[in-house]
């Protein structure tokens, strides 16, 4: 005969103010299996847990019901209390009388109390049918896959590798470095981006625990936490990296010029190119969409000048496989195309540029040697207008959210403009100045006071041409007047958006993404680094717009998560997983289709005992199964059982109300 203990929590005033807890305790006593029913102010506290432990021993309990807050909060706490008292921890049931009753029925104490009684009765009934369960152990492959070689991917890879865990870093473009490599100086300290980034890039290349696979993409991921198998496509670079010395003769002699995407198309690169001088690896690749040899079979000059014979026009894409235990996604961000701002004449006026174009211009290694110029006539601009929130906070044209970094980099641009062109002046149109961060407000003050940048509060409504000037019209709400600024150059702070490939990557990795294309974290506050899929983590702007400090912090957090995951030889996992009863399984495979975690596959088993004919049945990978129960609900032959939520348990609950 079952012997149940019921432990009701006041939760301070959270529960007791809206539920008649003493009455609830008495109500539970009416059930014959209940051997003890008690009340305590904070059941989760040490004395509270002590009450449970003592009662288990003294009353020889077979199961325990705690009526308190959500199991998401303290289920683990109370399971441990059961274990400590020598009871199987899965004999616990939590009746959530806080979130499900006291908090949502604050205006009706009587009804809230009745609901609490129902919830507790259900939990008691269920616990009577509980079975002893044991944690599942899964083996773990101690290698991490990092997707994306910007500062997020670099930091995550270095931190994981420093813990002597092998890392495979996959980068889409020919070099790692990402967006940060394109930046000149960084806020709020104005240290040179290249100077702080390139050492880390070199560390990646030389780290014994890091395998760098540039110019490649992840195209498939199978398996589950601790046991993933990734397929990686190495795009044909037409250059044999193992023999290439990076001497640069080929890029020098190549006759084909194409817009240079690293410099925001301000200048040209060759068809065989390394994206920038500090590239890692410092080996060129051939851009197949522009190389005349690959397109028309003519030229081949690069092959002629290469002393090592590293050029191979016959190279094809190659797919390789890696087994990994965890994945870090760090795909970064893109910038929004401001074309919809027709009222600014975007696309018609050459002297309207984006912030990243300005960034490349002021970069000492940039296409204009660090001096900003007007693209229309090459003159150095004096009056420069910066416009923030282009596409950001603009539902009509762009996206709803704030891109977070534009206020800061625009302040930086005002300062840099002043550094590069001493007799210049910066006008900044803004809606709000968002400078929440260490040293950030001070940095904005520096732009306002030291640089004397003029901040104008208002969204620009129109830009038109007058002579060789651009007239920028907006309201200065502070004086309540419409102003027109005569600009030599206009710089648009375009919105940060998710890379356009994020959704397809998310689908192939099996993680979710939001309506903007950013990868979704498991919990917006308490699990910002994990995805809902165990063993896959997020670093940097792939999750939401971020600045460099936040990106690096999140990348290191990813590394900590990966190291934690790999700390033991096996992974422990809750035993609430589904199992298939082969005798009942008809092989319809509906469960395979509904499983959101791809945890169900099929297998062939003998048709009957000793039969040579085979039939198909479903098979659940308990390492992947998250215990959601979708398969149980869809199974027409009732062949699937979910541990912890068996039919007898559920039926008991239903009967109890």
């Amino acid at each position, binding site marked *: 005969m079952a012997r149940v203990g019921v432990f009701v929590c006041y939760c301070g005033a959270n529960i007791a103010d809206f539920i008649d807890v003493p009455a609830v305790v008495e109500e539970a006593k009416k059930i014959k299996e209940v051997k003890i029913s008690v009340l305590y102010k904070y059941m989760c506290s040490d004395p509270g847990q002590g009450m449970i432990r003592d009662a288990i021993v003294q009353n020889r309990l077979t199961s325990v019901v705690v009526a308190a807050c959500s199991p998401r909060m303290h289920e683990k706490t109370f399971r441990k209390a059961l274990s400590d008292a020598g009871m199987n921890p899965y004999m616990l049931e939590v009746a959530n009388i806080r979130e499900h009753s006291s908090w949502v029925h604050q205006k009706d104490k009587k009804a809230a109390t009745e609901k609490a009684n129902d919830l507790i009765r259900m939990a008691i009934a269920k616990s009577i049918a509980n079975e002893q369960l044991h944690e599942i152990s899964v083996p773990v492959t101690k290698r991490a896959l990092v997707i994306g070689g910007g500062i997020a991917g670099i930091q995550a890879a270095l931190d994981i590798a420093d813990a002597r865990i092998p890392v495979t870093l996959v980068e889409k473009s020919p070099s790692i470095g990402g967006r940060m490599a394109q930046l000149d100086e960084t806020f709020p300290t104005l240290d040179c981006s290249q100077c702080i980034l390139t050492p880390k890039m070199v560390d990646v290349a030389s780290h014994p625990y890091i395998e760098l696979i540039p110019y490649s993409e992840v195209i498939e991921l199978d398996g589950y936490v601790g046991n993933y198998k990734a397929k990686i496509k190495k795009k044909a670079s037409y250059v044999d990296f193992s023999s290439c010395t990076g001497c640069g003769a080929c890029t020098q002699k190549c006759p084909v010029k194409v817009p240079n995407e690293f410099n925001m198309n301000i200048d040209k690169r060759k068809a065989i190119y390394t994206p920038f001088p500090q590239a890692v690896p410092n080996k060129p690749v051939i851009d197949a969409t522009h190389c005349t040899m690959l397109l028309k079979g003519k030229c081949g000059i690069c092959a002629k000048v290469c002393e090592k014979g590293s050029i191979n026009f016959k190279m094809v894409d190659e797919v390789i496989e890696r087994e990994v235990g965890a994945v870090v996604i760090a795909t970064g961000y893109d910038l929004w195309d401001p074309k919809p701002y027709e009222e600014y004449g975007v696309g018609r006026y050459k002297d309207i540029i984006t912030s990243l174009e300005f960034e490349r211009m002021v970069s000492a290694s940039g296409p204009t040697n660090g001096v900003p110029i007007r693209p229309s006539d090459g003159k150095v601009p004096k009056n420069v207008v910066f416009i923030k929130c282009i596409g950001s906070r603009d539902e009509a*044209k762009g996206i709803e959210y704030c891109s977070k970094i534009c206020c800061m980099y625009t302040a930086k641009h005002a300062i840099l403009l002043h550094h590069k062109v001493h007799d210049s002046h910066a006008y900044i149109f803004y809606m709000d100045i968002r400078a929440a961060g260490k040293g950030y407000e001070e940095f904005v003050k520096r732009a306002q006071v030291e640089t004397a940048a003029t901040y104008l509060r208002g*969204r620009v*409504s129109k830009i038109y041409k007058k002579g060789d000037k651009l007239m920028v019209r907006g309201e200065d709400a502070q004086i309540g007047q419409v102003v027109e600024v005569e600009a030599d150059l206009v710089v648009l702070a375009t919105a940060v958006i998710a890379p356009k490939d994020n959704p397809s990557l998310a689908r192939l990795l099996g993680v979710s993404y939001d309506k903007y294309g950013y990868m979704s974290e498991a919990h917006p506050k308490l699990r910002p680094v994990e995805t809902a899929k165990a063993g896959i983590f997020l670093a940097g702007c792939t999750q939401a717009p971020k600045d460099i400090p936040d990106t690096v912090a999140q990348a290191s957090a990813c590394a900590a998560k990966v190291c934690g995951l790999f700390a033991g030889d096996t992974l422990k996992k809750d035993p609430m997983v589904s199992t298939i009863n082969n005798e009942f399984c008809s092989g319809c495979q509906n469960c395979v289709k509904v499983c959101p975690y791809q945890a169900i596959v099929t297998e062939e088993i003998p048709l009957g005992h000793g039969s040579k004919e085979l039939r198909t049945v479903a098979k659940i990978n308990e390492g992947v199964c998250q215990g959601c129960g979708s398969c149980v609900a869809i199974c027409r032959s009732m062949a699937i059982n979910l541990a912890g939520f068996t039919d007898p348990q559920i039926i008991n609950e239903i009967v109890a109300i």
Partner: protein
Amino acid sequence: MITLGLLEKNTFLEAVNKKSGANVLECYQCGKCVSTCPVSSYMDFPPREIMQMIKLGLKEESYMANSMWFCLTCSACSGRCPREIDIPAVMEAIRHLAIEENYRSENKKVKDIRKFHDIFLDMIKRYGRNYELRMMAEFNIRTRNLFKDMHLAPKALLKGKIPIGHESTKSAKAIQRMFKLAGKLEKEKR
């Protein structure tokens, strides 16, 4: 100074939202409408400020403003509004509410503008169509500004720019009936 009390129920905001179909609460005061509006400098409260006044429930101040009378309904503001608020509809809502609730601005310009519209509608009621020369003349008489634009008249008349004769709809009765019935609908609505 304006004292703001407990704004539990902003009936003015509700009335404007209902009539305009817009949601004024969406305005985040970026001011793009102000620098877009061709006549904002003539308004005593430009669109951005009107929006805030509605949010604060400043009914009388809004009704007595000249802003909605100066609004040209050119829709440039709503076309550029990042929150896609139909600002001309909001202006129109305040104007119609002010008319319904009998608020009359003493501002000379507002009075002129209202007079013009009255004369115009009168003209349509009588002829079914607009008769431009008569329109100009009547406006000048009723605003006691007989010689306004008179210097334009000889040239315009001589060049045939403004014809002297005029046409009218044949079924003038149908138009008058329409005016009557539409007026009735207007009253029923209140």
